[in-house]
């Protein structure tokens, strides 16, 4: 079909006085392919919409050029209007003659306005429609990890009508809840019961994810359950694989044993019905290796308070900075100090040595400005929160990067915290970092909301060919596959012979990296293709 273009000029209520609109129109009218040039006062309001509608329909144009204000304000509305008029929204080309022209300069800017419009016109000639279609998605979700996060995510998903499958590698559900006492421990039984009772949740224990292929709406997941391998498909995958704690050996020169123990061991001792002799002096230490210590702070405060209550021991906490930047922790810190827990803040790591069956800590206290030597019956060592066993393996199966500490997904401010580079794959809770309860809960309901929004309609609208690789030009060099952060490109065989790159429109995030990087210029990003950009550059100075 030959190009037939309609050009709408908007003078913004007559305020763009330094552009001579009749002259612009004169210059544009005689151009090839241009059916008409209209001048309007305010295209963004209802009357403008009516004008565009009637002219587009009566003239039967197939390209729309609008010269008006910044696309930031008007693009979405105009694209929506085109859609209403049964014109593909990609056939719209905009020129910003207000912010980038009239307002930016003093004096007459008619020439510049004309150039900007010429650029839009020359681009519009080359625009191709980008069709959209609905793709059916699998409405089931996979939740990996049967701890607190995984169970709560599954429960909330099923309440919203999504059928989750919960995979846990241990024979029983519960994860770290099995080791925790107090508040979390008290949630354990009730949660496991609730999950088991919920008919919508399928539970696969002693099972592990060993392969993930495909894309959002259609992930093909290989699960190994005991000796059998199961292949299942899911629309989205939520990873809640949790954490482990570890005393980093380098931090403690003394061997762990009777006098130097972990927080976990201390919690067990506190739970024990009787203790032959309760320790008189207890020291807690954290912040030795780095200061990412929300988790140790919280564990120390809770356990220090429990020690005070249970044993009445003298408690000293050695750290650099108390991490109070989570909800309620400042209050806990105050309570601990009121109950007599002493906080000593060091700059340089304390020296820890054996002292006649006890442990001696030598530290400089920045508040007293003095060196302190303290001999403790028991020292509770810093425990780092690290990603659970197997995180590394799983991240390479998923082809998703980890951060410097090994947690899933490097920080990216432009993603929702739970989203990953691969559409349809999510990470919640402590498998993506050291989070406190409030943040874990926010993670869980975020992921539930996003998965529900994605899967519940049963279909996703995708652009059919926004980005495409030309099989004639593609030499299967793999450059694009390596560069694509969203794992949207794979090799396919066509006509039983040639192997070429194919871009999944579902997984593609329209970032354009592949189109820019392709050495054979085989990948075209419609709307930003080489010829469209060159046409715009060439239009400058022509008028």
């Amino acid at each position, binding site marked *: 079909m030959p190009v037939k273009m309609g050009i709408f000029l908007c003078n913004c209520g007559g305020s763009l006085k330094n552009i001579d609109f009749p002259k612009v129109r004169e210059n544009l009218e005689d151009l090839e392919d241009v059916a008409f040039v209209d001048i309007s006062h305010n295209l963004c309001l209802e009357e403008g919409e009516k004008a565009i509608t009637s002219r587009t329909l009566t003239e039967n144009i197939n390209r729309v050029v609008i010269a008006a*204000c910044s696309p*930031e304000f008007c693009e*979405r509305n105009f694209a929506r209007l085109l859609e209403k008029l049964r014109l593909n929204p990609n056939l719209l080309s905009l020129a910003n003659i207000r912010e980038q022209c009239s307002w930016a300069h003093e004096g007459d800017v008619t020439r510049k306005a004309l150039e900007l419009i010429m650029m839009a016109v020359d681009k519009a000639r080359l625009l191709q429609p980008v069709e959209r279609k609905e793709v059916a998605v699998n409405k089931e979700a996979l939740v990996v990890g049967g701890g607190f996060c995984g169970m709560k995510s599954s429960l909330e998903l099923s*309440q919203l009508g999504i059928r989750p499958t919960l995979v846990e590698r241990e024979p029983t559900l519960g994860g770290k809840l099995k080791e925790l006492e107090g508040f979390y421990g008290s949630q354990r039984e009730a949660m496991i019961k609730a999950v088991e009772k919920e008919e919508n949740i399928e539970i696969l224990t002693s099972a592990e994810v060993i392969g993930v292929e495909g894309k959002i709406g259609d992930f093909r997941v290989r699960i190994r359950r005991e000796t059998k391998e199961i292949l299942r498909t899911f629309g989205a995958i939520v990873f809640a694989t949790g954490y482990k704690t570890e005393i980093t050996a380098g931090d403690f020169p003394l061997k762990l044993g009777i006098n130097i123990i972990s927080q976990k061991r201390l919690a067990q001792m506190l739970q024990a019905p009787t203790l032959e002799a309760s320790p008189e002096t207890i020291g807690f230490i954290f912040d030795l290796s780095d*200061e990412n210590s929300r988790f140790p702070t919280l564990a120390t405060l809770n356990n220090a308070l429990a020690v005070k209550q249970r044993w009445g021991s003298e408690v000293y906490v050695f750290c*650099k900075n108390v991490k109070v930047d*989570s909800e309620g922790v400042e209050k806990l810190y105050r309570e601990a100090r009121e109950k007599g827990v002493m906080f000593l803040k060091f700059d340089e790591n304390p020296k820890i040595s054996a002292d006649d069956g006890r442990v001696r800590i030598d530290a400089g206290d920045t508040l007293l400005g003095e060196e302190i030597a303290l001999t403790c019956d028991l020292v509770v060592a810093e425990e780092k929160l690290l990603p659970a066993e197997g995180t590394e393996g799983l991240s390479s199966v998923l082809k998703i990067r980890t951060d410097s500490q090994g947690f899933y997904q490097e920080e990216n401010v432009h993603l929702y915290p739970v989203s990953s580079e691969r559409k349809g794959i999510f990470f919640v809770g402590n498998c993506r970092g050291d989070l406190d309860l409030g943040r874990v809960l926010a993670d869980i309901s975020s992921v*539930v909301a996003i998965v*529900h929004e994605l899967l519940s309609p049963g279909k996703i609208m995708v652009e059919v060919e926004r980005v495409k690789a030309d099989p004639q030009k593609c030499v299967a060099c793999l450059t694009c596959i390596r560069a694509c952060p969203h794992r949207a490109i794979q090799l396919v065989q066509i006509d039983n012979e040639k192997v070429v790159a194919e871009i999944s429109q579902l997984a593609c995030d329209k970032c354009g990296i592949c189109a820019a990087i392709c050495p054979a210029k085989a990948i075209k990003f419609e709307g930003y293709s080489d010829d469209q950009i060159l046409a715009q550059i060439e239009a400058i100075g022509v008028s």
Partner: protein
Amino acid sequence: MEIVVIGGGIAGITSALELANSGFTVHLIEKEARIGGQAASFCCKATEVCSKCSACLLPQRLSEIASYPQISILTNSTVVGVNGKLGNFQVEVCQKPQYISPKKCIACGMCIEVCPTMPKAIQPPPPEAVPYSYSIGESQCLYLKREECNLCREICPTHAIIFGQKPQRQKLNNVGAIIVATGFDVFNAREIGCLGYGRYPNVLTGFDLERIFRNQGSLKLSSNAKEPKKVAFIQCVGSRDENHGYCSQVCCKYAMRLARLITYQNPDAEVTIFYIDLQTAGKGFAQFYKEYQESIRFIRGVPIEISEAPSDEVEVKFENIAEGRVERENFDLVTLSVGIAPRKDSWELAKVLGINLEDDGFFDIKGPLNTTETNVDGVFLAGACQSPKDIPDSIAHGISAAERAMEVLQRCQ
């Protein structure tokens, strides 16, 4: 089913978008003339690398919400009455006169040209404002003061200017749930008189610095128009004191990011941060701290007094703990890292909705495993009105609140 979101900051916007994407009609009620909230005044703190301050997340969402058909934005509006219960609330909203209709204003700027007052009574919106429309200041406008001038109304090509309006009340019926996302007040540093804020021009707050960098791109002192060489940040102003039993969670991070920006723009600048406990945890930030801690001088302890010194400097009196004595040092600029305080007017809304406030004055939650639900079924919390939160945490909490609302509504249907 309709949902009312009270507050058009980052948390409220996120909740509204989330709910609209799931098919709900959303009324976003904003007290001010524009949505965006506090985050709209924050600056990008990137140097040659992004500092991951998340300030850029707001404009993205603003442009998304501006043209969203299922979200109606009511600016200049407050909730004055609520009846009913979960699944069927009636919400009464009062809208202050707007004088310029955001639906009709095309931001052409003709009104500002003819406005005869100095400074102009009509103000243009900031570039990314939603709604993008001009506004009239009541105190300067001649018509609103004495009914003498009518120039702007005559010239407006779209007849967007309407005088003689009264506050309008309207009732939203069939509201399934209400999400409260009213945000926070920046702590008023004048409350701590000895720190000299408001008295000395070179004592600013972190929020002032955000605005200066946002509007001017670089930091110049108001007294001599030069870039400051010696800059101090004082942490925990309005946090972790006898009146504020909580950590504001954002100040250490913004102070360090701003410190890096200052030393990047002016490599001669020396930055000192006075602190109680540095909050350096969090994904990505621990790494940031490791990389930049060498370039900043950290002093433990918060100064007790700030006074004027010769040649526009300010003198900071602080305790040198290591040496065990009180010292004085002069700085070109002292920045008070003011914290997040509960909104002063939150009790009014709490009364209207029947929800509780906790000890510090933030809205109270139902229980430890439920940080978005309140004591009233169908009323949810999102963002910093529940407890201090940074931008990413507010976004996560905003989605959370939307999800809880959807789930509860689904259950009661």
